[in-house]
């Protein structure tokens, strides 16, 4: 038969990993990305990548990594794929090392490892504090090698609009928009792999990059792909609040000994540096003596909220706490954390070698995503999903440094799985639905371009972000979630009156944004309604009115499917065959 043709959408760690495996196995790949793939959001990952290599004589094992990940995710992740990922991790690190990632080294020339949240082991390999950038570059270089050999064709500057699905419900390709010429085209493939990242833009400001809108996930959701665990959103405890985004200050700052504190006395006007040790409240260390500053992110974030909003101890009465590295020597900081210290200094203006950083939690990671089976295929034949846009590996809360691992692991298994699927899939009926899907997309484009009304898409987006951040992040109440859903419905209605200030057909970025916005609105309802329905607290999902985990009712995967009247929800049993669910208590010795 002919060489199988696979389309990969998204050129971050997950997408590039899939491309490499497909090209290596002799498949042909078309790689689509909004940005040149080297500029994908994976570059923002800072702290490292987990693998139980046990190079520090601590007795670490892949099973302990598996247990920490399941426990950290509050038992919501299916255990079979997580176990396989943790077992594959050490060999993945070796491969990245062979690809030339400049990981930090021990004096003997071996890989160095550091501590991260939610574990007591030094399990995180790292390249300074720019590990995501270094990993992405290594994979980008391998893909460039395949590209120069003609095995990969890149479509950079193209945005995925939809899947092409034939009359039997089998995916046969995609439609995409050239963001420069605004040309709409369809592309045929035997299988498609979505690797389109997180949904940060739905929350307005987050640590995510501009392209992380969730638009692709929402598009296929509206075409029938199930979306799972949408209500699980990670709010990272340590970010720099900003006007345009929230900039991440890596968990590795605490992994290297950074301490979080506030002044003990409300209204203490002294500068951080001038406050003596006895007047400082190291609340994470006091409340969680075993894990200290390295409790998982959901725990640290709620603790910061408590100290600011219940104890009223935020710095200078503001929603901010200190992240302090000033007790660590300058050379160590530069060698292990230089990248993030530069970010803080450039954007805030203070040198974190000398003064404690001021930080606050911010929306960071999408645990939920497109529902996939253990082969990474969604419920629609021929559509695979990998990386942050799937829901598979992190349950109700992701542990730091597990995201780079899950992206690469899912990418590596999806490539061969997509190839073997492509070799066995039945031939398509007629044109495979390409003409019909192109007509549908052309209709949406034409309507948007000539639409008249008083609404500006960027303003609607700011309202969406404010609502989502207020009601669907750290603390959730059913009343607030209901208000948020009503607000989204209102925004969907007002979206009908969007008019574009730019109606040109050349590099029209506001046109592309307006299309993304519609998809963001539809996906936002999945997040808030899923949260409203889950009357318990589990991992990152916390409801003060239902403060306990309720395994009897909710040890289940949330599965949302699209209907014209809004998302429809069902629940699926979780695979817990290896580790029996137990109470998750980081404050007690366990």
């Amino acid at each position, binding site marked *: 038969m002919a060489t199988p043709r696979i389309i990969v959408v998204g050129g971050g760690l997950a997408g590039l990993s899939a491309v490499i495996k497909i090209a*290596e196995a002799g498949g042909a790949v078309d790689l689509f990305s909004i*940005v*040149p793939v*080297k*500029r994908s*959001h994976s*570059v*923002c990952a800072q702290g490292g990548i987990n693998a139980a290599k046990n190079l520090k004589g601590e007795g670490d094992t892949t099973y302990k990594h598996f247990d920490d990940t399941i426990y950290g995710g509050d038992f919501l992740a299916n255990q079979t794929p997580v176990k396989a990922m943790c077992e594959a991790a050490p*060999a993945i690190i*070796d*491969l990245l*090392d*062979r*690809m*030339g990632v*400049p*990981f*930090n*080294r021990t*004096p003997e*020339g071996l890989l160095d490892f550091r501590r991260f949240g939610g574990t007591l082991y030094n399990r995180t390999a790292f*390249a300074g504090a*720019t590990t995501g*950038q*270094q990993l992405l*570059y*290594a994979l980008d*270089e*391998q893909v*460039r*090698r395949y*590209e*120069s050999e003609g095995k990969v064709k890149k479509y950079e500057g193209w945005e995925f609009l939809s899947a092409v699905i034939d009359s039997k419900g089998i995916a046969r390709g995609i439609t995409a928009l050239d963001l*420069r010429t605004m040309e709409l085209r369809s592309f045929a493939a035997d299988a498609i792999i979505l690797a389109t990242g997180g949904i940060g833009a739905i929350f307005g400001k987050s640590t995510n*990059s*501009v392209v992380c809108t969730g638009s692709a996930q929402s598009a296929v959701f509206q075409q029938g792909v199930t979306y799972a665990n949408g209500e699980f959103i990670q709010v990272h405890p340590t970010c720099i609040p*900003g*006007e*345009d985004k929230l*900039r*991440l200050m890596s968990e590795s700052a605490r992994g290297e000994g950074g301490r979080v504190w506030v002044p003990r006395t409300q209204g203490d006007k002294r500068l951080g540096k001038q406050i003596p040790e006895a007047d400082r409240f190291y609340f994470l260390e006091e409340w969680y003596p075993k894990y200290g500053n390295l409790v998982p992110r959901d725990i640290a974030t709620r603790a910061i909220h408590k100290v600011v909003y219940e104890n009223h101890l935020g710095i200078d009465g503001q929603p901010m706490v200190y992240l302090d590295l000033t007790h660590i020597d300058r050379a160590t900081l530069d*060698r292990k954390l230089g*990248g993030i210290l530069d*970010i803080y200094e*450039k*954007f*805030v203006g203070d040198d974190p070698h000398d003064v404690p950083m001021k930080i606050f939690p911010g929306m960071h990671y999408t645990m939920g995503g497109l529902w996939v089976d253990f082969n990474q295929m969604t419920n629609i034949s021929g559509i695979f999903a990998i990386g942050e846009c799937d829901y598979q590996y992190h349950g109700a809360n992701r542990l730091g440094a597990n995201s780079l691992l899950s992206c690469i692991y899912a990418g*590596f298994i999806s490539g061969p799985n997509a190839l073997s699927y492509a070799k066995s899939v039945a031939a398509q009926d007629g044109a495979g639905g390409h003409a019909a899907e192109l007509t549908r997309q052309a209709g949406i484009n034409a309507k948007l371009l000539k639409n008249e009304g008083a609404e*500006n898409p*960027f*303003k609607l987006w*700011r309202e969406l972000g404010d609502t989502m951040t207020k009601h669907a992040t750290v603390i959730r109440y059913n009343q607030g979630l209901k208000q948020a859903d009503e607000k989204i419905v209102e925004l969907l209605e007002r979206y009908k009156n969007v008019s574009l*200030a*730019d109606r040109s057909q*050349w*590099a*029209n*970025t*506001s046109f592309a*944004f307006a299309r993304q916005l519609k998809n963001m609105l539809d996906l936002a309802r999945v997040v808030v309604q899923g949260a409203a329905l889950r009357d318990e607290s589990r991992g990152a999902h916390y409801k003060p009115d239902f403060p306990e985990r309720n395994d009897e009712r909710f040890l289940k995967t949330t599965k949302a499917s699209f209907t014209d009247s809004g998302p429809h929800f069902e629940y699926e049993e979780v695979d817990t065959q290896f580790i029996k669910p137990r109470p998750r208590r980081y404050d007690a010795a366990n």
Partner: protein
Amino acid sequence: MANKTVQFEIKRQSSPDAPAVWESYELEWRPGMNVTTAMMDIAANPVTASGKPTTPVTYDSNCLEEICGSCAMRINGKARMACSALVDNLEQPIRVEPLSKFPLVRDLQVDRAVLFENLKAVKAWIPIDGTYDLGAGPRVTPQQQEVNYPLSNCISCTCCMEVCPQFNEATGFVGAATIAQVKLFNNHPTGKVLKEERLRALAGDGGIQECGFAQNCVEVCPKNLPLTNTISDISRDILVQKAKDFLLS
């Protein structure tokens, strides 16, 4: 009291063939404001300082924390990243224009694909045997890592190429960023198997000989790559390579 405002002048050009025009904007000042925030504000309210309706500005951006390399432009005459250009540190009106050495797409967006083509030409990768499990990588001393890691921090922003007097159509010079990647991969225990090919790729026209040692590149690099030292090192390696190739020919 009126809110504090910020004055911007942005060079607009609706397509590569259209005339360029400067537009002025008056935007609300906010603490920590950067140039990319200003672009977002214009998109949400596209009117000029004189109240004339306009279009949102087309520009590249992604991470907004100076690690993706997207938002390079000329700000008050200097090539730099727009996300880390804080308004409070800039003289007003803040004049923003596209990089001048690359084909213009629209407004502040240019086509920088040439850098990625250059990286192909010098084989900027480690030629691994395959992605199956072949055990650990080569040992690397911490000292070697500390040489290679800074070179691997290049974000492909092309600022070094923009400010280089030799980077133009007449010379076809590859620019400093590509040369730094040659050093990075030649330094690697496995990568050096392609060292001779990389050096030969930089030995002819458009290669290292075009460098006029103006040193603008190292001044402008937002990631502080040791670009001029690297160019010196690679120049020396190329001379050695040329001598070897001559003796063997």
